[in-house]
């Protein structure tokens, strides 16, 4: 159903993801690392581990633990973000950890931790999903046991129109009418299960079902970019 938003500001189709760029091996001293860009949003992910978890009482004798630390660089957005954790970054770290945990198997590494660091050098909406896309690549690059990959995308609704991969302009400009709705989704690559789901806004049940379908298609596009980067060996920085 067409609403006031009929053409996107950058000319994209409603189902089109912004141009993407991905690379692995960007931090030579890490066990795994990758970058993922969607339009102007850039994310870096670095994996260190498995390594011993301190303090000892936090160790799990049956499995390694995945620990995600998400943060935005102070100059990534127009109003400087003070360095250090905040409630938003803590929440994103947690949901990211849940999403990645659904595909990584650390049962072979008891008493250890695998740290995943995600940093955003430049933000233009969709930062948490860009971070997850980079993190999934970095975990694979680290050689960790993973039954499948995960891919992430934000689907939104602007006024009455469903739209894939909102950029910042779309996310912030539509507060007058029904407003914008943002739905980050993470899907597993093989079984197409939902590993992360958040919703911010208003949406009908049928629209939501459409959102999931659009998300699946968009995640296929994202998975292709992730796989190409992992298979493009000449881009890998070896250590």
């Amino acid at each position, binding site marked *: 159903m067409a609403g006031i938003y009929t053409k996107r500001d950058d000319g994209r189709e409603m189902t089109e993801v912004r141009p993407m760029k991905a690379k692995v091996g960007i931090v030579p001293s890490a066990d795994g690392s990758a970058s993922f860009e969607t339009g102007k949003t850039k994310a870096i992910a670095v994996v260190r581990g498995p390594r*011993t978890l301190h303090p000892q009482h936090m160790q799990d004798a049956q499995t390694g633990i995945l620990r995600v630390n998400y943060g935005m660089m102070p100059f990534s957005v127009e109003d400087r973000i003070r360095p250090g954790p905040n409630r938003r970054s803590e929440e994103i770290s947690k949901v990211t950890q849940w999403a990645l945990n659904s595909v990584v198997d650390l049962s072979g590494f008891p008493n250890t931790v695998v740290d995943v660091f995600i940093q955003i050098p430049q933000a233009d909406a969709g930062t948490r999903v860009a971070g997850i896309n980079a993190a999934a690549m970095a975990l694979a690059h680290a050689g960790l046991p993973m039954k499948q990959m995960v891919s992430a995308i934000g689907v939104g609704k602007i006024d009455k129109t469903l739209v894939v991969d909102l950029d910042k302009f779309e996310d912030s400009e539509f507060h007058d009418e029904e407003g914008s709705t943002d739905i980050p989704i993470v899907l597993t690559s093989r079984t197409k299960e939902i590993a992360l789901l958040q919703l911010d806004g208003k949406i009908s049940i049928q629209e939501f079902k459409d959102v999931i379908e659009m998300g699946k298609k968009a995640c296929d596009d994202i998975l292709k970019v992730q796989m190409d980067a992992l298979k493009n060996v000449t881009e890998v920085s070896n250590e």
Partner: protein
Amino acid sequence: MANTKRQIVVPGETIVTGNEFLPGDGAYRDGEEVVASRYGIVTIFEKHVRVVPVSGAYYPRRGNTIIATVVDITFNGWLLDFGGAQNAFLPVSEVPRYVNKNEMAEFLDFGETVIVKVWDVKSRGVDASMKMRGFGKIDGGMIISIGPNKVPRVIGREGSMVKMIKAATGCDVTVGQNGKVWISGKDTGMEVATRKIVEFIADNATIAGLTEKVESFIKELGLESEFPVEIVEENTDGENN
């Protein structure tokens, strides 16, 4: 070798279809399909499907040879750092001669480096042994780190790469499965040149025609490559010991 072309797979990717294939290390079965459970290079040998990692940390395996450094001395052994998640333990019973508990540091002190065998891998760590011939304390030379997945390429088929380096630089290259490489020669300048060659091999480990490239690199360094050019089939099957 039954290896087809060098196929890199991503977790969740279907490698082959068919019930006659057996999923090994790094692969699992999903219905009729054999699927990658790890990022790496596929090797299929007599229907046995494995995925060999090309990146990531070192995971110790029983029988591995590792190069490690003493970080602690306990009443009954030494704790060794080998770059893994936990330290390795070298019990006093696993060294070639009897060591009194008062002479532990005299025998093997903090900061000294050893070549040991991984005897056992447990959840709390790795047990090592130094009893066999060819293992023991090392001195002199220098140590560099490479990705553990590059180790087979640096050693070469039946040690061919290491031999080629020795012919060119006069230096011995001992490679631990944990990615630590001990370079030892009569002249530090040659050791530095050896380091450059080893790093070149590691950086180009996945590229075809590596042997020729290494020979050119050695020539570029101004060292004569006396090793006869052997027709070596480019093979990336990890010779994991």
